[in-house]
């Protein structure tokens, strides 16, 4: 019997496999909602189950956790301004503003719908043209990534708010903070002051918990906020023009997510910044971004979903895990003596196609699961803040602790909470700091590797076509931004983030 997609679909629709898929999606949503407790930790805990479950079922479930977590990830960012991971920082920017205006339901709904669109389109791409895409991804070596990272820095314009200077300063601070720890190349200590826990460096999650979550609680306590939203809750599902705007933004976000997501060195968090920037640039009303704009939420959520699922492309077609969660999925394959890669399709076609088919079903389950939850989640915003504030703090602490199981990270979160509070009062934007924090170490790593390749000369950046292309694109973007700010006279005030 010929093994193909339809066969896989049939197989994925059996009661057992549907159950595995559902459990995976449900678990994924739950761990996605809880900040810090990401899919990686959950998958690691469930890995020993591989000796009891049949391979197809187990992989379907683990994959479900992996992409399911992306759906849940937006909940705390939108409702509490607590982004559970770096890729939902920008979801919080517009999503939380929507919640404050009583439109939290719409934000949650569009992020579920956007995630569904992105997830499904990415699986289609995965199914049709994974191997050539993965080959293209391999063309990116260290010099290409340097150019690409520089290009990503141009998104600073979109997230800096009123003052570009403040944005650049915050991004620089982020890069500096990210360099604490051991030198990635030589293992020498940097900025640790001989204090052993600092050798680990700062993790992005505790920084997020502090800068966004804890500082929000402090600010609300300061302002004596009764509850995040006091009026009557708006509609739960966006309609008409708003829905259309959100759908188009989701499609654009998906495109950005897939194109950049197939590159093994790109993280969904960086990609979400590019998607947001792109969305702001094509928009007719860029000044609305940061004030609760449905396109901002949709594009970011779609892009990070597409990007993380696109990470499965190098895994399934070449056996290269590109992030921690993919590495665990890879480990699960190995526990069964299977090797992800082209051989998986020729030798275990039945299983490979069943897993792919299950991802369509999984995405459908997730959107069905998440849309009704919107009605429950959104009520969180109306809970009196004297109860919600402490709960938010607890969630932040647990999130900070659970990434690396250390109390050091909780202290980090508290310190960044105070820093974030001061930044909010003084109107310093937090998103550029995060951008610098996640881009900095990558840029450093690739820049130093490039220079090692070239023996120390910069010429390596001007002889490789992809590198040159991105360098020119970077210059073009900077030029465009400069011209734009020039043409816009002082009169128009751009609302900051």
């Amino acid at each position, binding site marked *: 019997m010929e093994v193909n997609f339809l066969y896989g679909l049939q197989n994925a629709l059996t009661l057992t496999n549907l159950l595995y898929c559902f459990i995976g999606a449900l678990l994924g949503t739950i761990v996605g909602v809880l900040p810090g407790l990401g899919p990686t930790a959950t998958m690691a805990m469930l890995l020993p189950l591989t000796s009891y479950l049949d391979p197809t079922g187990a992989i379907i479930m683990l994959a479900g956790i992996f992409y399911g977590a992306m759906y849940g990830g937006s909940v705390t960012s939108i409702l509490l301004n607590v982004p559970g991971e770096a890729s939902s920082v920008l979801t919080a920017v517009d999503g939380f503003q929507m919640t404050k205006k009583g439109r939290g339901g719409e934000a949650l709904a569009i992020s579920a719908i956007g995630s569904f669109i992105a997830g499904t389109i990415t699986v289609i791409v995965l199914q049709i043209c994974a191997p050539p895409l993965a080959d293209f991804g391999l063309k*990116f070596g260290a010099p290409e990534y340097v150019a690409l990272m520089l290009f990503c820095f141009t998104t600073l314009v979109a997230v800096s708010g009123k003052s570009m200077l403040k944005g650049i300063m915050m991004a620089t601070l982020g890069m500096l903070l990210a360099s604490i720890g051991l030198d990635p190349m030589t293992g020498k200590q940097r900025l640790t002051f001989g204090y052993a826990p600092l050798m680990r460096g700062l993790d992005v999650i505790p920084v997020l918990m502090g800068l966004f979550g804890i500082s929000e609680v402090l600010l609300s306590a300061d302002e004596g906020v009764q509850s995040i939203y006091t009026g009557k809750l708006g509609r739960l599902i966006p309609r008409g023009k708003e829905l259309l705007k959100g759908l188009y933004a989701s499609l654009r976000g998906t495109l950005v997510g897939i194109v950049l997501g197939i590159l093994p060195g790109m993280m969904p968090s960086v990609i979400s910044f590019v998607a947001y920037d792109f969305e702001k640039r094509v928009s007719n009303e860029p000044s609305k971004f940061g004030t609760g704009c449905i396109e901002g939420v949709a594009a970011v959520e779609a892009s990070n979903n597409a990007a993380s699922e696109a990470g499965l492309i190098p895994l399934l077609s070449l056996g290269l895990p590109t992030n921690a969660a993919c590495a665990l999925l890879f480990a699960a394959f190995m526990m069964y003596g299977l090797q992800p890669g082209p051989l998986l399709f020729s030798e275990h076609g039945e299983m490979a196609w069943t897993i792919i088919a299950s991802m369509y079903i999984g995405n459908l389950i997730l959107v069905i699961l998440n849309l009704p939850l919107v009605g429950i989640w959104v009520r969180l915003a109306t809970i009196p803040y004297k109860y919600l504030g402490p709960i938010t703090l607890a969630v932040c602490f647990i999130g900070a602790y659970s990434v690396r199981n250390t109390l050091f990270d909780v202290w980090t979160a508290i310190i960044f909470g105070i820093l974030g509070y001061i930044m909010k009062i003084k109107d310093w934007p937090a998103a550029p700091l995060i951008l610098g924090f996640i881009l900095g170490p990558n840029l450093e790593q690739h820049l130093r590797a490039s220079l090692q390749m070239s023996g120390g000369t910069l010429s390596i950046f001007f002889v490789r076509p992809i590198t040159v292309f991105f360098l020119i694109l970077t210059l073009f973007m900077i030029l465009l931004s400069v011209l734009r700010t020039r043409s816009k006279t002082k009169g128009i005030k751009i609302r900051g983030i």
Partner: protein
Amino acid sequence: MKNKIGLKNHILLLLIVTLFVFSLNGCSKNNQSVKYPTQPINVICPWSAGGSTDLVARVASKALAEKWGAVINVINKPGGKGIPGTLEALTSKPDGYTILADADGSNAIVAAWGTDVPFDISERTYIAKVAEFPWLFIIRTDLAWKSLNDVAEAIKNNPENIKWGWLGGTAGADAPVVQFMAALEAKGIDTSKVKMVTYPGGSDLATAVAGGHVDIGVVSSTSVGPVYNAGKVKLIAITGKERFQSFPDVPTTVEQGWNTVTFRGHVGFAAPKGLSGDIVKIWERTTEEILKDPKVVEELAKIGAVPAFANSEDYRNYVLNLADELKALKK
């Protein structure tokens, strides 16, 4: 702070001595001297989930937990090249309920090549060595090299044209590289002009070789297997004397005449200094038992490792000798 810990340690030591005396008492009646484990055991892995150390620790812990009818949690405390996690495990109570998933990266390598390491590797209780895994020399597919001799020839003729990917002399995978370079130097071949390109991890390195961005690198069998089967890299040698079950066609370094390029990675269990000898015995005995179980052997094989049991004393000597050997080599 320091005094506090010191005091704690003294009290603990006293407790352990008391326990020991009591247990000696028990010995005369029956052999079951201490009741262990009576509560969940935490195995701290100072590396990320899904890596070699983590996977071996998980396979072994699961089997041990079944034998003992106990709960063993593998907890990942990654970051900082494994140093902070190791420190945390080794400064906890030596009560047998906090165990370190130890590996080259947290013992021999860090002692030989690390800078400002906040611990001394002789100051811990080595419990048992569990498994070993070989390292593989991989090259770009469009290179004609067939063996390490061809690589040596290429370095001799054109060192500045060779890009060698590695992990910066901070990880187990770098040990065979350093051993190979030392062997070349011994033959009078200058290796200083080879361009060493540093990658953050084995899978990044495998990706770079597959993409043709560097010519050669050394990685574990787990990170290279699929890429190799996809035809994106070539394997030219595997470290050690014996060939490896997953790649029976790949000749070993020793077969190719490189008798000093033999380093293999290991994973074992260790604990804070002062763990009671009885608990060590229990771990040694059960670890040896589970490593004879064909099911465990098979599970290890799937993650690219082979059982390599060594008892507490042998494991300690193995690590300390290895550290001395690596220290003697120029990084």
